[in-house]
Structure formats: structure tokens, C-alpha cells
């Protein structure tokens, strides 16, 4: 007997970057890339390729990605205007995770104004000692409080110090916190001889906090095997068991230079694996993201659009 064909699973990418040529409409941060060699290399990455809306949509079509969260790249500093313009142009395809100066005067107004703007969350990157000390010293508290008050999720990348999220969630118990990149160090941040999975127990322990979710992004960079990266699954199963698929969001981190394979392969190691069932894939590849970031899927029939209901899953 022929089994009925499975409907295609919607694929929503939890993290991509895009940018256009430096210009008056969306000027780049002139200071970015002047700090050190690593920053200069990152600036060269953005100069060497221009990955704007057309190129990104083409890549997504080829890779089988239906929609995506744009994360404002560092080259724009705290200016989210380019990403917002792309969201406005393709509202069915994109939403934005923005960056913001936590000391800005009208921070609360800006966070409150996020709703309906296409900006569905803010990102904080704590990848060195200086930024960690700022975090511990309360530099981000106004942002975290405003985000909690206005129900705007915060994506935080806190490699090696991920356990600190427990403190944040205790102080801001209603804040939706998403751990970027599994909460673990990824290339090029992994030091020589370092076990990138060393703090996996700290990540798993955070699963008991119901407001914490996980972005399963750029994980092929942590594999020592070629696609389909089967060496990742013992680790991924630990995270899946702890959080459940309704708190995990797949993403590619498209344009990341360290990614070992193609964008398409960055999808299929999850979408075509036998390690997950269809229901789990539907959540990890998009359902969870739509719920966490309150991004309703628009279903178009005969040219008429109608919002579908949110996925039935709930955050634990």
C-alpha cells in the first residue's frame, strides 16, 4: 500500500545575515573592523561579498528554506534599518533580530515599538571578557527589563559562560531567552585544543528554566565529519531530550565563512535525517521559531491571505 505523501515541512531559518553595499541609505559602522585583526577580517568578509535580498532569496530557494530571521550583522552597528527594509519588502519571508545600544536614551520606547515593526527580538553577543563584565555589571539590565516588560525575546550568545543565563532568568523571570549557537563556542571562537562541547552540561541544565529556548545554529561548524555530520547526534540528542523539540530552533547562520558545507547541506543534515521524526522536524525546522517569536505563518489561497493559527505546541 502506498503511504500518503508527507506534506513538505516548512523550513524557517533562525539566523541568517544580509547586507548591501555601504551607502547613504544604510551606511556601515565606520568604526567596525578597526578594533583588531579579527574585526578587520570580519569587515573584509562583508566587503568581499554583498549578500542582499535578491541573493539571499535565491540561496534560500536553492537550499529549500521558506523564511528566515535576519540578524543585523555587526557591520551595521546598532542600525537595524536595512533589515527592516527587507522585512517590509518581503513580509512573508523575513523578520528581524535587531541590535540595540542598551544605554540609548529612549531604549524602552524603542523596545516597546518593536511590536508590529518586523523586529521580533534583540541580540546580545557576549564573546569576550570585556562584554561579560559589562553583562555582570548590569550594562544590559535596562534592555533585559524592557524586553521582559514588552514581551520581546532576547537572543544571547554567551559561549563558555552560558551558566550565567540562570542568573539572568532569575532576575528577569518573564524574559524569553534564546541561546544562540547552542550556547557553545563555535569556530572561529574555539581555542586550539578546546573541547567545544565542554559546557554542554551547563546548557542541558538550563532546560529546567521554562523561558529558555535554544537556537541550533551553525552546528555543522562543530562537526569533525563531512555532511551529514553524524558525529553531532549524540550531543544533539542530549539537548533535544532536555529541552524538547518545541524549544529548539534550527538555523544556518548563512554567510558564516566557517560553515563546512553548502547552505543546502546545512538544511538537509536536519531535514533528511532519520534521527528525528516528522513531528520533531516540523518543530525544530520552523514551528518552534514561529511560536517563540510570535511570527504567524501567512497562508495564501487564491491570492487571498489569511493568518493560520499558531502551532499547537507550547513552551514547557
Amino acid at each position: 500500500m502506498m503511504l500518503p505523501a508527507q506534506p513538505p515541512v516548512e523550513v524557517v531559518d533562525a539566523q541568517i545575515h544580509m547586507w548591501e553595499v555601504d551607502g547613504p541609505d544604510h551606511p556601515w559602522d565606520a568604526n567596525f573592523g578597526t578594533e583588531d585583526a579579527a574585526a578587520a577580517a570580519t569587515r573584509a568578509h562583508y566587503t568581499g561579498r554583498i549578500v542582499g535580498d535578491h541573493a539571499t532569496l535565491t540561496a534560500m530557494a536553492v537550499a529549500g528554506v521558506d523564511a528566515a530571521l535576519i540578524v543585523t550583522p555587526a557591520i551595521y552597528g546598532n542600525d537595524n534599518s536595512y533589515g527592516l527594509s527587507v522585512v517590509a519588502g518581503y513580509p512573508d519571508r523575513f523578520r528581524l533580530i535587531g541590535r540595540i545600544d542598551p544605554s540609548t536614551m529612549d531604549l524602552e520606547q524603542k523596545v516597546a515599538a518593536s511590536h508590529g515593526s518586523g523586529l521580533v527580538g534583540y541580540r546580545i553577543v557576549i564573546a569576550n571578557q570585556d562584554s561579560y563584565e559589562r553583562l555582570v555589571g548590569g550594562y544590559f539590565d535596562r534592555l533585559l527589563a524592557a524586553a521582559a516588560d514588552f514581551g520581546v525575546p532576547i537572543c544571547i550568545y554567551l559561549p563558555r559562560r552560558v551558566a550565567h543565563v540562570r542568573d539572568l532568568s532569575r532576575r528577569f523571570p518573564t524574559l524569553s531567552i534564546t541561546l544562540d549557537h547552542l550556547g557553545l563556542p563555535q569556530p572561529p571562537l574555539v581555542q586550539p585544543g578546546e573541547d567545544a562541547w565542554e559546557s554542554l552540561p551547563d546548557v542541558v541544565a538550563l532546560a529546567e528554566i521554562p523561558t529558555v529556548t535554544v537556537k541550533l545554529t551553525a552546528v555543522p561548524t562543530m562537526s569533525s565529519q563531512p555532511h551529514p555530520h553524524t558525529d553531532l547526534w549524540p550531543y544533539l540528542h542530549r539537548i533535544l531530550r532536555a529541552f524538547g523539540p518545541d524549544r529548539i530552533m534550527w538555523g544556518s547562520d548563512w554567510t558564516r565563512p566557517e560553515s563546512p558545507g553548502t547552505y543546502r547541506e546545512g538544511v538537509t543534515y536536519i531535514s533528511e535525517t532519520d534521527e528525528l521524526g516528522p513531528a520533531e522536524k516540523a518543530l525544530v525546522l520552523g514551528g518552534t521559531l514561529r511560536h517563540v517569536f510570535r511570527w504567524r505563518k501567512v497562508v495564501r489561497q487564491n491570492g487571498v491571505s489569511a493568518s493560520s493559527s499558531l502551532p499547537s505546541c507550547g513552551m514547557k
Partner: protein
Amino acid sequence: MIIDAQIHRPAPALPWVELGEGSQHINEDAELALAAMDAVGVDMAIVHGDYAFCEAAHARYPTRFRGIVQFSDPFGMKNVQDEIAAVRGRPGLLGFRMAPAAPRAGPNLLPALQNGQLDKFFAAAQANDVPVLLFVPGGLSHIHRIARSFPNLTLIIDHLGLPPPPWVPLKPNLLDGIPELLQRNMA
């Protein structure tokens, strides 16, 4: 390594973008092509287009793109010998293409291909070791004559020499012309 032997600018084409004073200008279609290639793992591609697009794509991504310049109006060329002799000296260019049966502009050139009016292009290409790509659906029989007349010419037949959709409707006997392509000695 995977090299795509033929890609084009999409239609409608995207605009040129100035990268800054004194710097190269870029073509957004080249960025788009590269994004698509990276999404599936194509290492290099040969773009088919005008001089400007071929050279811009190669200049910006010299390890990813080479070009085949498409002569959309061959008879509008001022000096056939000089222009073809210069093709291989232009950055990134590998050869030229003509599409006699399906020109972008102007008349169907299959009669010109048949009666020898295009032979000066082949002679110049042979003399300067410039590969020639021909899109000649329905004109395969002429290729035998050209190949015999210019034995040292690198002649590449596009798309199996057959009429691909949308030039003809997709139908089951689309590959009926294959025996003609494979025929070694056509009178």
C-alpha cells in the same frame, strides 16, 4: 570540483552598484549567482553574457567566474578579425558564443550559417585559438560542414544541438535529434 558550464544573468537583470569611488563597481547578478552556487556547492561557473557582465563577474570573483562573451549581433561587429583576436586577451574570457537559431535581436541566422556568411568568425576563431560555442537547434547538419572546414577550431555544441523548451513545446520525442548529433560522417 564542480564547474557549471553555462549560466546567465537572470532576466530581468539587476542593477549595477557602485562600490565606492576609485573602486570596482559590482553587478548584483554576480552576487546572486554566487549565492546560488554556494547554496548547492558549485565551485565555479562560466557566465554567458556581454563583455561588461563577464568581465565584472570575473574581476570581482576571479576564482569563481570565467566568461563566454555572447555575440548577439555578429554582423554589427566592426572588425571581426580584431575583435575575435582580442577575446582571449580580455580578463577572464574563454571564448565566444553565437546563437544563430535564436538570436536575442535580429533575424534567424541559420541561413547565414548554412551559406557560409558566418565562416569569417570561425576562421578568426581558429586562427586565434578561441573556442566557439554554438546554439543551433535545428541546424546540426551545418556543424558537420563547419567542423570539416575548420579542423583546428574548438567547436562546442550547446544544449546537445537540440531545441530545448521553451523554443519548442516539451514533448516525448524531444530527443529524436540525438542520432544526428552522434552521426560521425554526415554527407
